[in-house]
């Protein structure tokens, strides 16, 4: 059965991200009340598994081992209907 997950990978908060900073500055310049901008990627993955629990464990492994690099990225995992 197919189980869908959203994996959000962001550059870790402690790492200087010049792109995000530039965007933040530009938005502020446009007078938006923006406090902070962080950047990342979103992956939608559909996993074929026997149960939701099994699928979630696989999604977690994929997120941690392949989709993100722990040296400078953090990830969030969300199941999707």
């Amino acid at each position, binding site marked *: 059965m197919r189980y869908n997950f959203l994996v959000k990978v962001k*550059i870790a908060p402690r*790492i*200087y991200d*010049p*792109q995000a900073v530039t965007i933040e500055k530009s938005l502020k310049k446009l007078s938006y009340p923006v406090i902070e901008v962080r950047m990342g990627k979103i992956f939608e993955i559909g996993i074929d598994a026997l149960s939701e629990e099994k699928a979630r464990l696989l999604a977690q492994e994929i997120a941690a081992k*392949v989709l993100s*690099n722990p*040296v*400078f990225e953090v990830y969030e995992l969300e199941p999707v209907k």
Partner: protein
Amino acid sequence: MRAAVIVFPGTNCDSETYEALQRSGFQAAYVWHDWASLEDYDLIVLPGGFSYGDYLRPGAIARFSPVMKAVEKYVSDERGIVLGICNGFQILLEDGLLPGAMMRNECGHFICKPVALKVENTQIFAHIKRRVILYIAHSDGRYIADRKTIKKLEEHHCLLLRYEENPNGATDGIAALANENFTVIGMMPHPERSTASYHLNLDGLEIFQAIRRWIHARRS
């Protein structure tokens, strides 16, 4: 002395790396990414390029190739030296054979130009010039690692080359480093582009020859 040049789908700098190795006194051979074992090579080189298009992250997919399992074993068995150049360095970082990671250049775009590098005082490069000029050509050369890692690298004299003028925001201007045993080397600049008489200079030749001497020294 035998050197392998590993070719992944998307590797671009294989031919000139092969030629550079031949010029430096190695007998070079190409090794395909899905060969699961490595013959008797003194040096394994992962050349530059865009393996897997640099999709996901540079080196992130190539590190899962069958040949990388063989490279990991080559390293743990201490069979020789592994040198990763540019994308090759990125693959070694993603695979965990070297500490840290590469991020996008601070300026946000690709840079190609010759840069001056300070050669740190290390065993491998003790007998070459103190300053070399080599090409960089990358969009993801910003080396990062946590302070603990950097400190450890410094203490063990693992930092090999530093940019005189930091072109990409790399931590402490780090351009090349090695593992504690000096059996795995990663280098963002391209030594292979400085080995022929018609090249910018022969600084790259000095680097390859120093590596050859290092292999020799380790044997005896």
